[in-house]
């Protein structure tokens, strides 16, 4: 119908070659083809390929035969895999709590008017902008067992007498990578939550203050409930990224000492690429899928609920 109309009223009708594009469905199809082609080839296909790979015994250069769930059976009985599952949950849980608390605090600080606010905000985002691998090297150097500036500082503050071998001890190494992840994530939380805070009218807080609410009550009963939707989305995003994290552990400890700090991704890399057991590596990667799937479902349901309201 649209075509008929335009032909009647228009001095120059669209060239026949493009007439197909006047149809809404054809235009939509043409516009979506490049995206679908790329996402299909490099996400959907690898995903299926990964599932197929994980039920074979393929290695680098060897196609492998069907072995059923043997790879999954093997990794669930693998002590290192169990440690990495534990580590991944610990890492995600602890860092998310700290990132949320510190990020919210920083967002509240930034939500005030002070001189140099724009400048401060720009600088605060740096840990999030700078390539993670490169900034993690700076942290690794700061945690270096022999030349650590942190040890120097603690020693001169009189807190320690001997050196602390940050990355040589399993628990300290885990704490170190958790610190780096918090460092990298706080800016993201702070800036996203700041954007959320700025949509909340200050009059609400003022009204509560006139009614006699203390600062803490104003936060808990006015600001926090209004900020919850943004917080929820930011937390879910961060959980996915942290759960699947690779770079920080790869650089800081490489999974060591003695495979004590592996996450899913670093262990999958070590098995799949490092030792060339492609199928087992693919199985370890895919073991992340149920948790990620759950988080995505929660997120989709939550977004839909917010949209319906």
């Amino acid at each position, binding site marked *: 119908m649209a075509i008929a109309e335009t032909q009647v009223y228009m001095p120059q009708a669209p060239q026949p070659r493009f007439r197909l594009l006047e149809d809404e469905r054809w235009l939509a199809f043409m516009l979506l083809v*490049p*995206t679908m082609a790329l996402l299909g080839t490099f996400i959907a296909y690898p995903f299926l*390929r990964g599932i197929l790979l994980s039920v074979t015994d393929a290695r680098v250069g060897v196609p492998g035969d069907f072995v059923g769930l043997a790879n999954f059976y093997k990794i669930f009985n693998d002590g290192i895999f169990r440690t990495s599952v534990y580590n991944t949950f610990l890492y995600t849980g602890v860092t998310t709590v700290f990132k949320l608390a510190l990020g919210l605090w920083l967002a509240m600080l930034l939500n005030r008017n002070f001189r140099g606010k724009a400048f401060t905000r720009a600088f605060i985002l740096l840990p999030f902008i700078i390539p993670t*691998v490169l900034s993690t090297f700076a942290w690794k150097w700061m945690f270096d067992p022999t030349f650590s500036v942190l040890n120097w500082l603690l020693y001169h503050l009189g807190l320690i007498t001997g050196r602390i071998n940050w990355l040589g001890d399993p628990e300290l190494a885990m704490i170190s990578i958790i610190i780096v992840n918090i460092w990298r994530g706080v800016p993201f939380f702070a800036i996203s939550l700041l954007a959320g805070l700025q949509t909340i009218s200050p009059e609400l807080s003022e009204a509560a203050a006139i009614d006699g609410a203390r600062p803490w009550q104003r936060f808990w009963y006015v600001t926090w409930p209004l900020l919850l939707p943004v917080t929820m989305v930011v937390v879910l995003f961060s959980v996915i990224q942290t759960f699947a994290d690779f770079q920080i552990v790869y650089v800081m400890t490489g999974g060591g000492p003695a495979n004590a700090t592996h996450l*899913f991704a670093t262990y999958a890399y070590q098995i799949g690429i490092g030792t060339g057991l492609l199928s087992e590596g693919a199985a370890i990667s895919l073991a992340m899928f149920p948790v990620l799937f759950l988080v995505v479902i929660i997120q989709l349901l939550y977004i839909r609920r917010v949209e319906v309201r």
Partner: protein
Amino acid sequence: MIEGAWWRKWVFFYVPMALFLLFLLFPFYWMVITSVRPDGELYRPWNSINYNPFWTWNPTWDHVRYLFEETLFASWLWNTTFIALASTAISLVCGVFAGYALSRLNFPFAGSLGTGIFITYLVPQTLLFIPLAEIIRNYRLGDTPWSLILTYPTFLIPFCTWLMMGYFKAVPKELEECARIDGASRWQAMLYIVIPVAIPGILSAGIFAFTLSWNEFIYALVFLSSPGQKTVPVGVTSELIRGDVFFWGPLMAGALLGSIPVAIAYSFFVEHYVAGLTGSVKG
């Protein structure tokens, strides 16, 4: 602002703010100071006498010189720039088109396609890198920049689409209808009317995509093997560490110089970047 006694301002604002800034920015200071410090000072044990780790009186360019003369750092910088720009361009074109289609056109399965793209947005690279490495090898793309230029859009397009949908929804329908009444085809109305209005969104998506692809690590680590093809993050990781020996001076100089291009790009578009960042989570 904080009311009450003068000290409250210090306790509740200045001190916490200063601590945050110290925590967030100290690693960068440490990068800078390490990269200009001579080796003799760098490798002094932390408990030696009269040692001040925070300053040096003998700054040197040796580490930077080493980086450019003894390693392929210049090629890594060029590779990273090229790959980041190319994958950003591809993702912007795809993202703008897909965002336009999903937010302004009526067609069957629009809703489920939108959800599908949102889900791929949440797929982390570490889930797929092993099968993807095989696919890249089968297509004979391994060890070429194209292995990254074609795979980076998989995490950039969903983000660009998502962000652009938000911007396109805000453009009034009447604007487009006016153009159509004046004789523009659908395609022309999109290209000349709707897309120009959404340029701030394109800039936001572009700068965000550029920093993300500059940042990417695991695909580059797995798909590239020869030293001359590597990107900065991978080159610094694999070529400046020999066995257990870390060349800390060049490493920190490399980390610093590898961060500067993306920091400059960011500093020009801070507002757009923040809009992209917050838009990406709000949708």
